């Protein structure tokens, strides 16, 4: 069964058409990696899947729910890690997590949060105000949130951005673990070698059009675009 399905998705902003009839499918428990030059529309595609942008035309499904008509169901099934950290500067790490999960209707216990924070390596900073966190730590914090939410579909924008080497390995470990549990992961990335470690399928988005890739091509091709 397809966990994510895009059908003829197009998106244009005022002076620029970003996506041109993009269609693709990601199966349940699969990790799909999306590559492409800067400005190719990777983030736009991901943001459409995350119900942040309305596609100009076309439609999409997440976990079998229609992205335009069953938004609430779609939103219950995915979790997005994006450029924005969604943190409030004056709240502590712990409070930020409880707030973010609380809005989703969850109520994680203190030990649960602590365990997630320990796993991403920022357990020591639980009571620190989030304004003092570095970009990498904020990213780790987002991963901890995802661990607590346990979504059916995980959307990662620039999956490895601002993470250090150990952070990248931790991310890959986490992706491998959740895909084995049946979670579908959709990432955009630039680091081909790292993405190839976890991805089962890949695609290149260029000039608004999507081309499917074999994983072997990821490692051998001289230039993807």
């Amino acid at each position, binding site marked *: 069964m397809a966990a994510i399905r895009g059908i003829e998705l197009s998106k244009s902003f005022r002076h620029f058409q970003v996506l041109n009839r993009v269609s693709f499918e990601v199966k349940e428990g699969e990790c799909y990696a999306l590559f492409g030059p800067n400005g190719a529309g990777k983030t736009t595609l991901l943001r459409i899947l995350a119900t942040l942008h*309305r596609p100009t035309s076309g439609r999409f499904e997440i976990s079998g729910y229609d992205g335009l008509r069953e938004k609430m169901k779609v939103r*219950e099934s995915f979790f997005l890690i994006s450029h924005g*950290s969604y943190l409030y*500067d*004056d709240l502590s790490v712990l409070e930020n997590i409880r707030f*973010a999960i609380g*809005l*989703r*209707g969850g109520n994680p216990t203190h030990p649960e949060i602590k365990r997630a924070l320990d796993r991403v390596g920022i357990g020591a900073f639980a009571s620190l105000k989030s304004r003092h966190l570095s970009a990498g730590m904020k990213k780790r914090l987002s991963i901890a949130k995802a661990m607590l939410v346990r979504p059916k579909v995980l959307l990662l924008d620039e999956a490895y951005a601002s993470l250090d080497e150990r952070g990248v390995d931790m991310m890959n470990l986490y992706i491998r673990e959740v895909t084995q549990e049946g979670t579908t992961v959709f990432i955009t990335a630039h680091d081909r070698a790292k993405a190839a470690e976890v991805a089962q399928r890949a695609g290149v988005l260029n000039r608004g059009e999507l081309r499917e890739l074999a994983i072997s091509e990821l490692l051998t091709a001289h230039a993807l675009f």
Partner: protein
Amino acid sequence: MHFFNVIRWIAWKDLLSELRSRENISSMFFFALIVILIFSFSFSLDPKTSKELMPGIIWIAFGFTGIIGLGKSFLAEVHNDCMEYFQIVPAPKGAIYLGKFVGNALFMLIVEIILFPMFILFFNLDVLEKIPMILLIFVAATIGLSALGTLFSALTVQIRAREVMFPILLLPLAVPIFIGAVEATRGVFSGDPLPLYLDWIKLLIVFDAIFMVVSFWVFEFILDY
């Protein structure tokens, strides 16, 4: 119960942030203080004319204060892209609106309650025994102003030139609140019997009700596509 939990979480977050930074309330307070000072220089008020002008001065001060505070309300949400999280979180958007509204109305009310003694002090107002009625007017007008202000704050926060657009959109629509509040306050100050200005308070309450409902309904379209 998710609905009420979301309201609680949002209001909790705003109040806690404010308690720690005191950014909103202090900037509103000092701004209003300056407005009062300028007014007291601009008009050399004897007790008789002050009774005539006071309601207008008070509500101009509170109105500007509201613009400062309400305009900043959603600024905290765009800082780390938290507006995005509001959009994709599976929570009723109306509840998010109400949560923000509760915080905004409380901040404005707190500032008004701190400022009012200063008006009494600076302008020698003799209104001590009418304070319950005045409080009622403050609450009724503040609810209306916050209801509209929260809506327009969210509407303008993501656009260019938001500092200009916010008052441009808010003030014309808030005309009935200002008329109602000024007239009711004038009635109290000049010692009129209640039936003479009760209609204005009723007008404020009707306005509150209409705009709470309308904003609650349209807010979904702001935070969503």
